[in-house]
């Protein structure tokens, strides 16, 4: 039985992934045998420090960074907070400006909104109908006091790949260049990332999206780049992230990064092929399917966002779960107080298409058989539900 298969089909890998067996073994081993504190002077402590150093190299290698550029955090959210606040807090808050775009993850948008309360000015760039921004938009938004540009690499709901290298190049030509942060949580291990050669200063990554443990992530901080700490304590992680190191998480993250590096790029090619196979099945079985994820290299290989109007996304998700297929939605179905997807809304999508959106996300362990079986189950549910919801609309 291939790893990841079982009594159900898990296609919600953009939310989180199942830990790889080697990762789970490593975490258990560090928890129970190699559990020293890296700050301790004795040999158990030294052993733990070596584990952390090895993991740092493994995590760095996947983005072509050097080990002293990796700061371990509790995950992607903390990495985003550290990047944004760390860049802003180097300045007086009154005359600081930040540029982001509207489909960023909540950990970026809500951090920016909190900074606005502190007096920071923020520009939220619009995306086009496919979900993209352009380097020119970024340049046009810059002000003399702009200290940070933060643009995600891969959108977590649609898989759209923003033109990060092109934005970095555009910024590189400026006389007073703001820092450039990239939220790469969904991109890490899925598309090539090279912050050092691109000219990216800060990059957030996370363990549990690549079959690593939850509760561990990292911020790439370009060599020599000054950043203000947002937590204060000991001198772990060069003082940027004090607190006893999460050694089981860090070691597990290292192993996961290593496995992802070995699998890349073949795994990405395979996922993209499976994703297109899945879409083809859905499209031939239900020609009215709406695709919100661009085809080809404009999107990550593992995320497909679609809707089957008038079927509400949340109702479809529950039906699929009952049949053993796990996908997700970010939009609560026409609940008065529910929040529809801010990402799709920013792309101009509305009505039943917005309420109907579901996100299907693969992992490198997903099999062609799982994709075929999932397509069949999705089509069956859509067929049944569309009659129900379509039926009501026709009857009035």
């Amino acid at each position: 039985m291939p790893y990841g298969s079982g009594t159900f089909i898990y296609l919600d890998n953009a939310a989180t992934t199942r830990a790889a067996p080697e990762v789970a073994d490593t975490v258990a081993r560090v928890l129970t045998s190699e559990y020293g504190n890296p700050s301790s002077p004795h040999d158990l402590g030294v052993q733990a420090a070596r584990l952390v150093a090895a993991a740092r190299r493994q995590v760095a290698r996947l983005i072509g960074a050097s080990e002293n550029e990796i700061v371990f955090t509790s995950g992607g959210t903390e990495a985003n907070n550290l990047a944004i606040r760390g860049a802003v807090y180097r300045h007086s808050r009154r005359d600081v400006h930040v540029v982001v775009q509207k489909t960023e993850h909540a950990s970026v948008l809500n951090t920016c909104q909190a900074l606005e309360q502190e007096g920071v000015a923020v520009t939220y760039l619009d995306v086009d109908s496919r979900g993209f921004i352009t380097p020119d938009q970024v340049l046009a938004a810059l002000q003399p006091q702009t200290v940070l540009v933060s643009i995600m690499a891969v959108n977590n709901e649609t898989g759209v790949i923003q033109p990060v290298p092109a934005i970095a190049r555009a910024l590189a030509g400026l006389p007073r260049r703001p820092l450039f942060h990239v939220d790469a949580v969904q991109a890490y291990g899925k598309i090539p990332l090279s912050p050092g050669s691109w000219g990216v200063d800060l990059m957030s990554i996370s363990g549990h999206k690549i079959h690593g443990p939850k509760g561990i992530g990292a911020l790439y901080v370009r060599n020599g780049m000054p950043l203000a700490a947002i937590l204060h304590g000991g001198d772990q992680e060069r003082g940027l992230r004090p607190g006893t190191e999460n050694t089981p998480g860090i070691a597990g993250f290292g192993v996961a990064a290593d496995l992802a590096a070995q699998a890349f790029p073949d795994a990405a090619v395979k996922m993209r092929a499976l994703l297109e196979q899945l879409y083809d099945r859905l499209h031939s079985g239900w020609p009215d399917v709406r695709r919100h994820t661009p085809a080809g290299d404009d999107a990550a290989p593992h995320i497909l966002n679609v809707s089957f109007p008038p079927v509400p996304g949340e109702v479809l998700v529950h039906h699929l779960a009952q049949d053993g297929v796990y996908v997700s939605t970010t939009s609560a179905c026409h609940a008065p107080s529910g929040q529809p997807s801010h990402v799709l809304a920013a792309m101009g999508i509305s009505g039943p298409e917005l309420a109907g959106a579901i996100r299907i996300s693969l992992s490198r362990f997903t099999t062609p058989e799982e994709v075929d079986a999932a397509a069949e189950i999705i089509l069956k549910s859509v067929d049944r539900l569309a009659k129900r919801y379509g039926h009501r609309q026709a009857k009035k």
Partner: protein
Amino acid sequence: MDTLILIRYGEIALKGQNRGTFEDLLVRRLEEALRPVGHARVVRAWGRMYVQGVAPEEVMPAISRVFGVVSYSPVLRSENDLDQITASAVAVARRHQSAGRFKVDARRALKSFPYTSLELNRLVGSAVQDACPGLQVDLERPDFTIYVEVRPEGSFVYSQIMPGPGGLPVGASGHALLLISGGIDSPVAGWLAMKRGIRLAGVHFHSYPYTSPKAQDKVVDLFRVLARWGGPLDLYMGYFTHIQEAIEDVVPERLHITVMRRMMLRLAEAIARQSRALALVTGESIGQVASQTLESMQVIGQATGMNILRPVVAMDKAEITVLARQIGTFDISSRPYEDCCTLFVPRHPATKPRLRDAEEAEARMPVDDLLKEAIARTEKLVIAPD
């Protein structure tokens, strides 16, 4: 001198021959409420009760949630002896501000005590004044009152009278089943029913996988709050998916809500009869939504032969909301997850449905089979207070 809590109950003392039964019930409810605190003991005495053996601040929150309690006071008890009574009064006075005005309100229920109530007022008042130089007796506009009661079982001194929730002890009025949706109204209706001594159980209708499992968690959380006033409570998760689908399939859209509510009452009645409930309780309030016009309520109510209690029927949303906040259910009710009531809302529901139309529509559904299946697939949970 020891500290205890004096419990007053008004209404149940009036209930003639049943008085003993009601008092027994109140003692039991108090003991249940106090059990988590430990060594509290409830003692009965002539139209009142005392809670002994614990610090008042530990048990007062629990007592404030026992229906039947009209008010309660932390009191100092002593022998029927003037020196001890004045010592208690000084101790009570010292809990208040060091400067200000007070009066003494003494009652001599034990007529063999050598001082009259008036004499006690004067004697205790001047003793407190002597002991606390900042305090002055002022009978017209006191900042606080020191109450003194001389009774056969001892003398009691206190200054605080805290309101209880009133009503009747849970269990005094039998057993009823609440139809709970997850909205703001039905938990308040359930609470008001409990306040009248009803032992409550609940039924929630879910249409998973059309509705989120989180809608069920929401109802469980609401019941955890209600259970503070007399739990643990039984909660039935009524399976409504196939009934909902059948309604969608064969009932004209304008009658969806009418027939849905009628089917809910039928399923609730079946569960109520199994669990020996004597009435159904709903959160209906006149005019709030289409199903809550008098015409609708008439047609819907005829689906069951059971008595339907509607404790919030004549309350405004604002009044219900105030209660929901006091009870602690408002924030939970405000969570977004949908239940069957909100998921399939038609655009133009009938506000004046006719019974004949509803019955005609239902004749197209296998009502008995649907109910039988729904009963078989309904789960029972037991919800303890949080």
